[in-house]
């Protein structure tokens, strides 16, 4: 695929369409479905032969959320800086900043499996030996990381042993209130005797598998016991809150607008050992992916 043959709005349209109907678009082989790619400085990498100037042994891979693109990571008022590139100055040998682009409407476990395969190929073909791997996941991206960790450890992939840090930024580990609401609303309307109410329920039900997975924070192919966090990796959680005052009722109800603080921290999960948790009141869900305060926090944790 050419690196950037389309205009910005076309990329965003594809990302939004893929979020809503990505699994359906993929089944129709529709070119609107965003294809999986790893990018460096806006250029897609050839995984078998990655050509990168000054490749370093530390890789930081950022994984965006639902209906987003890799551009969500760009920090405002900088020359294309992102969390990954800002880490480079503080880590010995530098950091190669990579971003994933993927079809967010596909089931999360499938994106996780593909990411795992991609990382395995990447560490094998990287020009210098990979010594450290950092994964940053925003929103759905955090669940994709968990799916990839599960797939990678099940397949005994080499990259799992190189993974030092996972950062979950506004990831709905216990589900998103909006996705839960859509699920409940569709179920309720579908049970109504009036046909016009059923139609509304059916329209809500058209949402992709990726969105459905967000209602319960699912990242496995089938229900069942969720695997624990990888034991030899540090796991960090970052949450946002809409209002600046932590105890504001808006924060209790809506969290960062899409994910509640408790869900982002995985409070319903048992046995989680987190290396760090940080909450940023006044930073909404989208801005969590490119906020200077979050960048400073990541420097503190990862450098």
């Amino acid at each position, binding site marked *: *695929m*050419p690196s950037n*043959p*389309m205009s910005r709005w*076309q990329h965003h*349209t*594809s990302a939004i*369409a893929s979020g809503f*109907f990505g699994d359906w*678009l993929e089944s*129709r*082989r*529709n*070119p*609107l*479905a965003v*294809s999986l790619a790893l990018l460096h400085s806006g250029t897609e990498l050839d995984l078998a032969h990655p050509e990168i100037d000054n490749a370093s042994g530390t890789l930081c891979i950022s994984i965006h959320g639902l209906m987003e693109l890799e551009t969500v990571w760009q920090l405002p008022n900088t020359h294309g800086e992102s969390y990954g590139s800002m880490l480079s100055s503080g880590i010995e040998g530098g950091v190669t900043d990579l971003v994933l682009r993927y079809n967010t409407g596909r089931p999360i476990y499938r994106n996780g499996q593909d990411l795992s395969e991609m990382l395995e190929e990447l560490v094998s073909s990287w020009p210098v030996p990979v010594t450290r791997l950092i994964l940053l996941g925003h929103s759905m991206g955090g669940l994709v990381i968990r799916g990839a960790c599960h797939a990678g450890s099940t397949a005994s992939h080499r990259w799992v042993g190189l993974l030092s840090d996972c950062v979950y930024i506004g990831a709905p580990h216990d589900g998103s209130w909006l996705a839960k609401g859509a699920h409940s609303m569709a179920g309720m309307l579908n049970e109504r005797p*009036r*046909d*016009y109410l*059923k*139609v509304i329920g*059916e*329209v809500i039900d058209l949402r992709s598998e990726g969105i459905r997975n967000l209602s319960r924070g699912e990242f496995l192919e089938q229900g069942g016991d969720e695997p624990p966090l990888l034991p030899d990796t540090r796991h960090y959680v970052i949450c946002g809150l809409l209002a600046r005052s932590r105890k504001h009722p808006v924060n209790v109800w809506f969290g960062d607008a899409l994910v509640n603080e408790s869900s982002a921290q995985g409070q319903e999960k048992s046995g989680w050992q987190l290396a760090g948790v940080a909450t940023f009141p006044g930073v909404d869900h989208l801005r969590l992916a490119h906020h200077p305060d979050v960048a400073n926090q990541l420097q503190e944790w990862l450098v």
Partner: protein
Amino acid sequence: MSVQNNQYKHGWWLGMADMLTQGVGHGVMKIERVHLAIADETFGILERVPVTQPWSRVARVSHHGISRLCYRSVSLAATGVGLAMGSDPKLLKR
């Protein structure tokens, strides 16, 4: 590269058209159900009133018949356009 780019852009527009025609085809059928279900509520009231009862049944049948014809024509046309584009091999080119 520019030929490849043009093919990719062409494919993107065909993909957009495919999504829109599928959306119109299915969306129109849903609008038909909403329209007829809401109309049934009104006709149901008219049928309970003795003065309007004889005519409301006739009106309901003709209203539903004409509405179905219109909605299904649009849906059929959209599905036809979608099928015609689906037969274009460029649509399947990634």
